[in-house]
């Protein structure tokens, strides 16, 4: 849990933070696509798989909102740890939503890639 992204460099700064925030909802829904997870597991999954480190104070209220919107459901499960954990899973609506979001993301990033192609030649 000590995994943290490096402080953003002066120039990458705000834009990068905004971009990460914008992807957070998609990332959370996508992390839950393969099965139920509890809050801490979701954060660890995001940090390990996508380098997306988000403060706990943002993730928990966001999970609560996604649940309020009917995209997630939750259940309490007793664990060996000695205290129960609150697991989230995608509802049918959440599953449809994340698939739509992923499709949009893919077509959007593909077209942006075309636009960025000349920049990559420049770099080399």
């Amino acid at each position, binding site marked *: *849990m000590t995994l943290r992204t490096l402080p953003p460099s002066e120039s990458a700064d705000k834009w990068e933070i*905004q971009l990460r*925030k*914008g992807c*957070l*909802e998609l990332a959370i829904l996508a992390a839950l696509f393969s099965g139920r997870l*509890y*809050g*801490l597991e979701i954060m660890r999954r995001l940090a390990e798989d996508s380098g997306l480190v988000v*403060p*706990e*104070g*943002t993730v*928990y*209220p*966001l999970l*609560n*909102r996604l649940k*309020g919107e009917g995209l997630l459901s*939750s259940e*309490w499960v007793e664990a060996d*740890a*000695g*205290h*129960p*954990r*609150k697991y989230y899973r995608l509802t049918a609506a959440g599953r449809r939503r994340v698939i739509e979001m992923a499709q949009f993301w893919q077509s959007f990033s593909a077209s942006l890639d075309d636009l960025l192609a000349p920049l990559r030649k420049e770099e080399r």
Partner: protein
Amino acid sequence: MTPALADPQTVLDAYLSELRRRLRSLPDEQVMDIVEEIRSYVLDTTGGRAAMTEASLNAALSRLGTPTALAASYVTDNLLERAQRNRMPWTILRAVFHWAMLSVKGFLVLLVCVPGYLVGASFFIAALAKPFRPNAGLWLIDPDTYSLVLGMTDRVPQGHELLGWKLIPIGFALGGGTILLTTYFAQWSIRRFRETRQMRRTA
């Protein structure tokens, strides 16, 4: 023996009860769910009740933020959603007040709403008071200074009153109009804010 004040369990309980208090505008069931989830998170990251130390607890709590800030993130969205559907100035003011604590945009909207509702309410009160309080009205003190007397006290300003009995229809119309305009503005801002946040979550 550990001194009672530094006992991590006590510190955690105090944090959670403060969180519970700040969440009280949400339905009870949801409050319990949120508080227990935060407790579960803290127990997970500190190694559980037995292993928890003051340092590990402080680290966990600082990642969560203060109970006030954490509760505000939960409550604001709920309040704003309610304010979008409900036109009562009180509901709207409460939501905007919470929003103002979270973002500059919310603060700016609050800066418009508070004077808007105050001016609107003043016209209303003056119009309501007129039949009983003859001093209620719009007074011209000197060529540049007007004073709206609400009729709450017996104070009679130096100068003369401009509207007379017309204060009643004018006061209701202006008061109602100002309150409505303020409400429309607040709801429009809230709607825009929530729509953009569907895509781009600001924390």
